[in-house]
């Protein structure tokens, strides 16, 4: 049996289309449901969009984060851990003031991971950047490498940690994007608080899911990364800076 050139191309094209379609369908299916015994995959990438136009003088996100994760200070601002903070920007020319929450930006190319000598600082398959405190030696290279000053060192003994959020002296910590909540299908505490008590300025979702709220909002208007010149492709995006 001999195939004409046209028939061959036709069959080949159909085969390629079939291969592309089948995994595509499976990707969506996997991305939507994950049971507790399934590992995270790179089919998802979690991200945040913060609309600075809506973010006003309020710190609901900071309070909620520190409450959720049991982050407590000792009244020593220079060394107390800080997972999220409100930053005030003032335009010197016009005097216009904006405030925005800044936390770990969950970069696609995280500098903290590049410099970590033990592999404690790592990026999970779904894009969440974490510190594995079991292997962190507390050298703080990641704190120096982070352009957003997102990480803190735990200087003092910790007590009364939250069961889901272990924290200990001598290790570095930062925003986990509330990984313990995300893994069970909830949204991060800061986003929940902003929607409830704040100004509804934060959206959380899967950056790789074309039907997610965050993806639609990012597609609908201009947004920016902090320090886009560093090409880190952050998971946290801002609008209205």
């Amino acid at each position, binding site marked *: 049996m001999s195939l004409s050139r046209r028939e061959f191309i036709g069959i080949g094209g159909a085969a390629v289309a079939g291969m592309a379609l089948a995994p595509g369908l499976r990707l969506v299916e996997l991305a939507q449901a994950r049971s507790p*015994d399934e590992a995270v995959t790179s089919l998802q990438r979690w991200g945040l969009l913060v609309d600075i136009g809506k973010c006003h003088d309020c710190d609901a996100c900071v309070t909620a984060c520190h409450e959720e994760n049991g982050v407590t200070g000792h009244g020593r601002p220079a060394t107390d851990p800080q997972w999220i903070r409100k930053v005030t920007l003032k335009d010197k020319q016009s005097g216009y003031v904006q405030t925005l929450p800044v936390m770990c930006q969950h970069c696609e190319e995280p500098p903290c991971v590049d410099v970590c000598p033990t592999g404690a600082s790592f990026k999970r398959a779904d894009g969440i950047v974490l510190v594995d405190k079991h292997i962190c030696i507390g050298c703080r290279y990641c704190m120096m490498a982070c352009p957003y000053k997102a990480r803190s060192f735990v200087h003092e003994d910790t007590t009364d940690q939250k069961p889901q959020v272990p924290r200990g002296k001598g290790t570095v910590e930062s925003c986990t994007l509330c990984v313990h909540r995300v893994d069970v299908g909830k949204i991060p505490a800061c986003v929940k608080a902003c929607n409830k008590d704040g100004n509804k300025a934060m959206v959380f979702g899967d950056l790789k899911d074309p039907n997610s709220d965050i993806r639609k909002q990012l597609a609908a208007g201009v947004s920016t990364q902090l320090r886009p010149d560093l090409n880190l492709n952050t998971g946290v995006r801002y609008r209205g800076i």
Partner: protein
Amino acid sequence: MIRKRKSCLAIVVALLTVVGFASSAPASEAKKPERIGPTVKIHRGEKCVEDTEFMRRNHMKVILHQRDETMHQGIRTTKHSLKNCVDCHADPKTNSVLDQEGFCSSCHEFASVKIDCFSCHTDKRDKNAVAVAPFKGVAKRVQP
């Protein structure tokens, strides 16, 4: 005649030795010092997630395996999680596994093995944990 007597004596001596040995055997067992071991109080649950014998020797391996899976792959099954250990084994009075008679500390102190887990993880039971019917506290002596 003398030979007969001699053989009788030998039999009696042999019997006495046998009886002596037999009676001395339980005596030596009774003299054995009591086996020393920590008192481990098990407060809740009829049964652990694995066999007790297996857990005594391997609990650290089980927790270590689960730790890496949870941290790096987001696998949050509760069966082998440290949180599950604490939720079940915490003392109902103190809610902790670390007090003097705590489930973890009593044995670890006896064996003089330092536990690193609780420098970061909480030793207290999660107040919101799913309540399991309390099991009447029994003090068990664990043989070393």
